[in-house]
């Protein structure tokens, strides 16, 4: 069986541009949640978010000009810019720059998004209403389509292998990584650039998730405290934006070219809740089976897992249901592992979350640091395992599991291991 390893990492998050800057702050317990100042929020019930920092004095400022020229960015809604930025970082990091036609044909891309170009769709709809169809930009469709992150990455680097995109709401990033690893295992490609990108942080996005009663609305005056997984005071998720991209590679291929190897994708598990369009199944059955299937795929016993990066969105229902599923699956070992939600620091990156969180899990493997669950001051009843409250924890992490669950009852778990 072909083995799949990770040889490149890239991300743009509310903590800033790049993996190192994000991780350094995450491990220190810095929050990237702030009062939204990019668009009008006074009539919105949720006014905080994980907005990508672009201000000049931010230590890890995101500079869109470094990704693509302004004229080219007219062809891209923001999620494409973030996805391309994360892909560039990951590809540069991996050192994989194939020149030969055959190598390019063996390199593919699978970067998804939960929602795609929502700000752009909202804007174009206004233009249509006000000025009619002749004023719609020829770039409107290609700048909104979800698979255009994969498209732009392939065009920029000449990667002519499988070109795909996942759309499974908040499980997108995890599914993309899992599916990419299967594409490599099956032999359709040797290298896959995989991940998720999201930029739905706009008036319509906030209004829509708020209408579904999914967002935190009680902490508008104290933004950094709004995302508080498992805490009694939690009242919904805080929306973030950004992207996470990994370079996945067949193990012998990576070894042969002397690539640095961050981790191995050991297992991938999927499931469907078959329950409700937005609410998780009350018994946590979907998450339970995704985790079980991932560990089965990895041929590992539950006792092997040291760290779980939880889905943990800070919603009243979801956090405890996930924890219940973890306790049921892991039994006594649930009290020996550490589990945290990094959404406490960066909010919920929706389709990018699974990819960004897989990278955090890999950083935990590489550094022996489990990132904290911020704002977990007063855990709900029964939240009695190590949820890494407030401060990062140092421990040996050889195997990590990362969970992602999405609207529609779509679940994915990844098992990652040190090589």
């Amino acid at each position, binding site marked *: 069986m072909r083995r799949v390893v990770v040889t490149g990492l890239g991300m743009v998050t509310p903590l800033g541009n790049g993996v190192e800057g994000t991780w350094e702050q995450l491990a220190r317990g810095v929050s990237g949640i702030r009062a939204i100042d990019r668009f009008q929020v006074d009539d919105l019930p949720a006014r905080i978010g994980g907005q990508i920092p672009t201000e000049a004095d931010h230590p890890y400022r995101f500079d869109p000009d470094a990704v693509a020229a302004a*004229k080219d960015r007219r062809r891209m809604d923001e999620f494409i810019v973030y996805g391309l930025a994360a892909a560039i970082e990951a590809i540069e990091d991996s050192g994989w720059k194939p020149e030969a036609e055959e190598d390019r044909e063996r390199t593919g891309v699978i970067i998804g998004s939960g929602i795609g170009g929502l700000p752009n769709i909202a804007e174009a709809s206004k233009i249509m209403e006000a000025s009619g169809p002749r004023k719609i930009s*020829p770039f409107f469709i290609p700048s909104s389509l979800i698979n255009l992150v994969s498209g732009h990455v392939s065009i920029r680097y000449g990667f002519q292998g499988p070109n795909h995109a996942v759309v499974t709401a908040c499980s997108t990033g995890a599914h993309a990584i899992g599916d990419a690893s299967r594409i490599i295992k099956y032999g359709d490609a040797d290298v896959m650039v995989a991940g998720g990108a999201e930029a739905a942080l706009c008036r319509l996005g906030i209004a829509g998730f708020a209408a579904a009663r999914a967002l935190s609305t009680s902490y508008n005056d104290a933004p950094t405290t709004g995302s508080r997984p498992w805490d009694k005071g939690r009242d919904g998720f805080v929306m973030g934006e950004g992207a996470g991209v990994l370079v996945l590679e067949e193990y012998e291929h990576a070894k042969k070219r002397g690539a640095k190897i961050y981790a191995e994708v050991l297992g991938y598990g999927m499931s469907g809740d078959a329950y409700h369009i937005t609410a998780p199944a009350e018994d946590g059955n979907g998450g339970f089976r995704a985790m079980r299937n991932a560990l089965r795929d990895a041929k590992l016993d539950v006792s092997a897992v040291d760290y779980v990066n939880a889905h943990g969105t800070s919603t009243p229902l979801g956090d405890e249901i996930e924890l219940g599923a973890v306790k049921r699956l892991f039994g006594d070992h649930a009290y020996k592992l550490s589990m945290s939600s990094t959404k406490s620091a960066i909010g919920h990156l929706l389709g990018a979350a699974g990819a960004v969180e897989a990278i955090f899990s890999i950083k935990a493997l590489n550094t022996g640091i489990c990132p904290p669950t911020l704002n977990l001051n007063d855990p709900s009843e029964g939240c009695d395992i190590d949820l890494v409250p407030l401060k990062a924890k140092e421990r040996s992490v050889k195997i990590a599991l990362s969970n992602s669950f999405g609207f529609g009852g779509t679940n994915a778990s990844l098992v990652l291991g040190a090589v």
Partner: protein
Amino acid sequence: MSNVAERVKKIVVEHLGVEADKVTDTASFIDDLGADSLDTVELVMAFEEEFSVEIPDDAAEKILTVKDAIEFIEKANG
């Protein structure tokens, strides 16, 4: 250079991100200035906006160079 020509060239420079000295009268949007078919649609929309003219699709298809654009607009506004 006429006022129309100056304004057309300014739009081309802004939209295609090219150096001003490359935007000569005879420059072809696609062959010389690196535009693709979507860029040319957007350029025509920008000309319509700037000069308050309507450029029908069959006329737009014939606007291939900077000069084509200037002539169409001068005629339409003349």
